[in-house]
């Protein structure tokens, strides 16, 4: 059909090309590796809650500066993913923004999941700023329960504009969901029949609420901003807004501990890192991330 086929396939030329490409790629790769291949890298894998991740990421940076041989890799995924990863030995530290459930304890009975408090945080009932500015600045537990179970469908019923509510739920294993549902329904695994959308990380949930003009969701208080406002929740007879001060003082009703979880008692470099986060250097890191530092717990 064409010349190449008449002359037969040119193996040598082809092999040359393949080898050239192979070395080309190998070159780039080894340059990349070369920089990081200092002797004896120790890698600590930190996986889990996206609420805890900012603390871990900042701490990892500061810690690696002091200990150049140590590489700390921080990844999100959610509290359930973090606990599962530690339980299965896929990570050294799991981050969780909720307690380990009985089911998880049972699944990983052999590894003795141990938790270390690295901070404290409030869970906000977050709504689109349009709704907040239209007057919905506080909600009772019963109102939130009705919204999430689908009984209240319009913002009008809670003093807002006549607009349907976009109820945003979270993946079931997420720490923020456990804590929020415990507060609203007294059941960490409560079903939300009114939900219209499922999100995962804090970032995903926040951008969905911000994108909409009539959404309600659950969010770590540190993630609130001008587009996503947290409503005040009732405690006793007063409504308490999810501000840093109210969370620090313990006034805000939905507060949870942020945890690092290890398999058994941490030793060596793991212990150093956790002590670092919980020590004096950790204080500024935790505060910078928008959370409350819990000294020496």
């Amino acid at each position: 059909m064409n010349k190449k086929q008449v002359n037969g396939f040119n193996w040598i030329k082809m092999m040359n090309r393949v080898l050239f490409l192979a070395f080309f790629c190998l070159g780039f790769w080894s340059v990349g590796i070369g920089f990081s291949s200092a002797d004896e890298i120790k890698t600590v894998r930190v996986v889990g809650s996206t609420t805890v991740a900012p603390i871990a990421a900042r701490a990892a940076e500061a810690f690696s500066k002091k200990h150049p041989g140590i590489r700390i890799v921080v990844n999100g995924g959610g509290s359930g993913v973090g606990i599962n990863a530690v339980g299965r030995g896929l990570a050294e530290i799991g981050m969780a923004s909720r307690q380990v459930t009985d089911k998880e304890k049972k699944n990983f009975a052999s590894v003795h999941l141990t938790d270390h408090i690295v901070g404290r945080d409030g869970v906000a009932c977050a709504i689109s700023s349009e709704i907040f500015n239209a007057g919905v600045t506080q909600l009772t537990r019963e109102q939130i329960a009705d919204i999430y179970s689908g009984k209240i469908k319009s913002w009008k019923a809670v003093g807002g504009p006549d607009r349907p509510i976009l109820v945003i739920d979270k993946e079931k294993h997420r720490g923020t969901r456990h804590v929020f549902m415990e507060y609203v329904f007294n059941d960490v695994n409560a079903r939300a029949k009114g939900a219209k959308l499922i999100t995962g990380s804090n970032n995903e949930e926040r951008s969905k609420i911000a994108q909409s003009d009539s959404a309600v969701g659950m969010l770590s208080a540190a993630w609130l901003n001008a587009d996503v406002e947290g409503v005040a929740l009732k405690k006793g007879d007063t409504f308490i807004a999810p501000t840093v001060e109210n969370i620090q003082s313990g006034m805000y009703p939905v507060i949870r501990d942020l945890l690092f979880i290890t398999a058994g008692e941490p030793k060596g470099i793991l212990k150093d890192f956790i002590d670092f986060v919980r020590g004096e250097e950790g204080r500024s890191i935790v505060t910078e991330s928008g959370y409350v530092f819990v000294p020496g717990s």
Partner: protein
Amino acid sequence: MFSFLVPDRRCHADPMFWITVFFAGLVLLVAIIFFSYLIFESMPIWEQGVWAFLTSVEWEPAEDIYGAGAMIYGSFIVTTLALLFALPFALCGAVTASEFLSPRTRLVFKGAMEIMAGAPGVVYGLLGAALLSLWIKDFFGLIDGATLFTAGILLGIMILPTIMTLAEDAIHSVPGEYRDTALSLGLTPLQAFLKAVAPRALPGVIGAVLLGLGRALGETIAVMLVIGGLDIVPSGFDLFSPGQNIPSKLGREAAEAIGSGLHWNALLALGAVLFFGTMLLTGAGSWLLRRNKV
């Protein structure tokens, strides 16, 4: 003992023969292990009742209740929508490219289609989440754009180039004599296509459609970004309700469940259902394509 491989015994002396046989065997072995693992690991779910798993819409990992109904429904609706949306465009495009474009233009057109067909799902997903879901939300006045409908349209756009380019191949591979004969009998080009070419190309076109469907059925990330992620079967075929399909469910929950108990078994059972579905589709697709070529 290896005579089943090749009748000609002279081949057995060639080392190249054994190398190729080794790798071919390896591929076969991996396929077998893969399939057995899916079936074996999902056994605890199947033992609880195959029908119950396939039809129940309750999925509550915390209570160890697993039903795939919502995911199977979502997969079905989304792929059907994708097909309905993509088919008219893909077929018209294929006919135009094969029959009515000059060879040069055809190559440019085909090139563009093949680039589109090769674009990764996540790219489509990003566009879907950033643009399509907002357009659909505004156009239909919904409270949110993450719906089964959005996922279906997005998948339709994704599989359109795949179907179009494969269908075009099938149509174009019908020998020219059929067209020439039809034209010389006085038929117009369009009539010639419909009466002489289309029947010959049909198996190949169906094959192309099935391969496109296979891609739609397995697409994960693009769907995950726009489908809403809610495990429900909406009442009354409501397409503008959020939903869930199998790959998106697997994508959302795999990391939390790896290796842990019934939850993991249930996800693998979902995987097996999906695997079986795509196997049927691609199997049928390649069978029809092969028949067309011979």
